[in-house]
């Protein structure tokens, strides 16, 4: 090994070519035979199939690294998926996702509550009783009023923005409550639709039923907070813990350190394993360095979990495959066709684009079957109830090859036998999307559809592609983007995309401006349905209708290559967190 290294060094000094080679293989010798970690790596994809290294051993430091900081640490303000996953270290909710691997993670279990809600027969009243022994980090008990206050913060969008606002829409659709900071009530508990008859009981009164209400209550935006600990906007810098860990420090864009919250007791919390003594998060500005440090063993996992860089995954798959997982994320990567932009207003032109697309080429542009994902047939991810293999355009046939004959047929039906011109909008900060846009452009060119690629500022996409008027003005006939569910149901995934009542003038995600009363009605039915299986059947119908309208060209059901250090115990991927590891269950071997 020494001779290999010294010869490498000699060559590195000599030529750039060898330096480049060195860059991709330099960490050789650090992983497969490592003995310091205690555990042997469990094997490729082990954490997507079950629990890796089951253990109850406490202690050690769990070390996260990542290149992207939290959007916020304030549970009412966070929207990044990894932040939600991480939030369980220091927040608790009435109910939460089960600490089970894979699909089982999506079932809801009581957390602060003693049991799941008692739901009234009309589906509009949810009642919870709180556990004993639940406390904040100062030892004071968590009361029903604290939970209500925490939820009320969602209403104060003028002060603490950024988080999901589902509860505001469900509990106060008319926007009558102005939020706790403008609340005239001395206890700041003026929201009418939540009642707290005593410290241990909390009752939610919904204006109309919503079968996913408990799913939404499981989001971190329902975390409790004591009013005297609320620092409004500045609360994000040091949240007040209700979970097993509390913040020792947090410095934006640098990192965070969490230590045990000694006031938290395991007996009050059936979900959180709380194995490590300490949890650290390091934000590193160099994405390549992030992967190298993971491979080297300095850190345990990437908190962002958006997949390793190209050079990182090449090294990891080549030399440390047993430390790599290739999970499915619940994200679909797709192109959407705004129906208000000509000629995409004609269903045949939309179908022509779908048939002309070579799905295999698009998958390759996304990074191939491992780093990109499986070719997608329709717009419902497998982790959502109601998903099936409905494939009206034969995306899964012939290995995803384009169906040029059908495409030309549809072009004729559209009245554009020679093809047409359009514009593809793509986010410039997403290299894989840019690559897909170029691949799609090439496919379309073969049937005479001339597509220009317009790269937009990814950070500003919510006011570009998110604005229907801008989309029409710029003539975007094809928008390339991606979507993942906020909570794993058809409502969480599909409604913002295809319910016509969700069309917004900015921050719009219904890019096709699909507004079909039949589909809208089906959403109402599905949401009112409290049986998830029955609701799933309705979402399946919606999905089929959407597919038939040909508003979407799904590329892949996204998969990522993620690193799992050999030290980690209790590792598994959770559908509830879009295929990330369930962070709060992780432990480290000493």
């Amino acid at each position: 090994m020494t001779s290999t290294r010294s010869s490498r060094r000699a060559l590195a000094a000599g030529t750039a070519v060898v330096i480049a080679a060195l860059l991709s293989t330099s960490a050789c010798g650090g992983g497969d035979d490592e003995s310091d970690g205690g555990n042997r790596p469990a094997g490729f994809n082990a954490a997507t199939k079950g629990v890796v290294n089951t253990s109850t051993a406490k202690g050690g430091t769990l070390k996260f690294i990542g290149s992207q900081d939290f959007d916020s640490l304030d549970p009412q303000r966070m929207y990044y998926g990894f932040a939600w996953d991480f939030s369980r270290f220091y927040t608790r909710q009435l109910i939460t996702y089960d600490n089970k691997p894979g699909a089982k993670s999506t079932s809801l279990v009581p957390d602060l509550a003693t049991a799941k809600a008692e739901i009234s027969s009309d589906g509009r009243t949810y009642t919870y009783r709180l556990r004993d022994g639940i406390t904040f980090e100062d030892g004071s008990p968590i009361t029903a009023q604290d939970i209500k206050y925490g939820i009320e913060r969602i209403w104060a969008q003028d002060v603490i923005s950024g988080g999901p606002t589902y509860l505001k829409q469900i509990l106060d659709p008319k926007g009558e409550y102005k939020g706790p900071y403008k609340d005239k009530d001395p206890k700041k508990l003026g929201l009418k639709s939540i009642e707290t008859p005593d410290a241990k009981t909390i009752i939610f009164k919904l204006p109309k039923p919503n079968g996913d209400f408990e799913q939404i209550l499981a989001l971190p935006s329902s975390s409790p907070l004591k009013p005297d600990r609320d620092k409004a906007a500045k609360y994000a810098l040091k949240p007040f813990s209700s979970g097993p860990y509390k913040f020792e420090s947090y410095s934006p864009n640098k990192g965070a350190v969490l230590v045990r919250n000694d006031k938290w007791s395991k007996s009050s919390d059936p979900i959180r394993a709380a194995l490590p003594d300490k949890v650290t998060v390091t934000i590193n500005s160099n994405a390549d360095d992030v992967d190298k440090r993971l491979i080297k063993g300095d850190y345990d996992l990437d908190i962002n979990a958006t997949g390793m860089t190209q050079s990182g995954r090449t090294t990891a798959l080549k030399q440390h495959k047993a430390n790599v997982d290739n999970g499915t994320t619940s994200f679909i990567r797709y192109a959407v066709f705004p129906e208000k932009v000509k000629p995409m207003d004609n269903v045949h032109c939309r179908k022509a684009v779908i048939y002309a697309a070579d799905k295999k080429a698009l998958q390759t542009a996304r990074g191939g079957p491992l780093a990109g994902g499986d070719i997608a047939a329709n717009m419902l991810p497998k982790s959502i109830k109601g998903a099936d293999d409905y494939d009206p355009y034969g995306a899964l046939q012939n290995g995803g090859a384009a169906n040029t004959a059908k495409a030309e047929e549809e072009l004729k039906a559209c009245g554009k036998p020679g093809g047409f011109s359009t514009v593809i909008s793509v986010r410039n900060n997403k290299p894989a999307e840019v690559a897909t846009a170029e691949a799609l452009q090439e496919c379309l060119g073969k049937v005479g559809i001339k597509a220009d690629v317009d790269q937009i500022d990814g950070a500003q996409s919510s006011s570009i592609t998110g604005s229907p008027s801008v989309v029409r003005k710029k003539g975007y006939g094809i928008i390339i983007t991606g979507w993942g569910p906020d909570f794993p149901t058809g409502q969480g995934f599909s409604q913002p995309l295809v319910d016509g009542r969700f069309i917004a003038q900015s921050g719009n995600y219904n890019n096709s401006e699909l507004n079909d009363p039949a589909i809208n009605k089906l959403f109402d039915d599905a949401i009112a349905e409290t049986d998830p299986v029955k609701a799933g059947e309705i979402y399946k119908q919606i999905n089929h209708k959407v597919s038939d309208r040909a508003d979407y060209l799904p590329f892949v059901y996204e998969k990522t290559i993620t690193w799992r250090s050999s030290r980690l115990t209790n590792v598994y991927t959770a559908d509830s967190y879009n295929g990330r590891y369930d962070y709060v269950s992780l432990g480290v071997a000493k």
Partner: protein
Amino acid sequence: MAARGGPPGGAGRLRHPPGATARPSTVLAYLIRRLTAVVVMLLIVTLATFAIFFMIPKLTGTDPALLFVGKQADPAAIEGIREKMGLSDPVLVQFWKFVEGLVAGRDYANGVDVTHCPAPCFGYSFRNEQEVWPVLTSRLPVTLSLAAGACLLWVIGGVAAGVVSALKRGSVWDRSAMSVALAGVSLPIYFTGLVSLAIFSYALDLINVDYEPLTQNPGKWFESLILPWITLAFLYAAMYARLTRATMLEILGEDYIRTARAKGLGEGVVIGKHAMRSTMTPILTILGLDLGALLGGAVLTETTFNLPGLGQGAVRAISDKDLPIILGVTLIAAFFIVIANLVVDLLYAVIDPRVRLS
């Protein structure tokens, strides 16, 4: 510099520039004039930055407020952020409030309580819910550490290599040193940086590059900075070696070097004293300006080595569209550059007796 009266020249033949060796009062007046110009300059930079960021959303039709509202753009949230960021004010009003805050501090109302931002208030980052000034002051020592250490290395290395190259012009040493210098000038930091990381951190595992402040752990501070220093110094040393070589060769052709030899001075004195004195003048000038520019943040080096300095802060702020931080870093960078210019001009008057401050 002491004031010296020039002798009345015999029959008006002596021309003795009166300001050449300036009196303290002249220097003071000069300083006051220059510092005023610095302030005006910084105000212009601020206004320009304001105008740019004020104009960009109007030109591109984007809304910075939308960046902070998350996936569900609540109208109340958008309005609240616009108000907090002062986006609804005209650009001159925003500018005036900013300048006022710099001098007198300023209050930011977040709708519930009022956050006081004491002078010098460089603004408030809504992305991070922090005042900008503490963010800058926490990042500045990192950039200072990086710049100072790298500077020391590149001056010693670059000047030494340049002098030896000039004296051994055409030799194997000269040719190889200049080839290395060409490589140093041409290779980007993120390449040399990654190579040094690959060798010393990943492969050999000799160096841990996680930054720690000097005041907390001098050993780790040094360890974390040694690779960035070398990487950054490599780039600059290369430029300085080329500059030193060229200057030294030019100086060696000067008449006064021949005069020095004609006096019977040894070659050591001729090079070490007479030639070096002149060679250092342009080097010091460039050095001052380079250092000034670096203090605004060594963007690539800090990003590559994950050093939490101003440059890294700027990159993050740009990707976060965190205008107050961008503005703060821009101002700090502009401040260092104009101050460096002033220092260089003063230094020039000290090292070159022909230069007057006027």
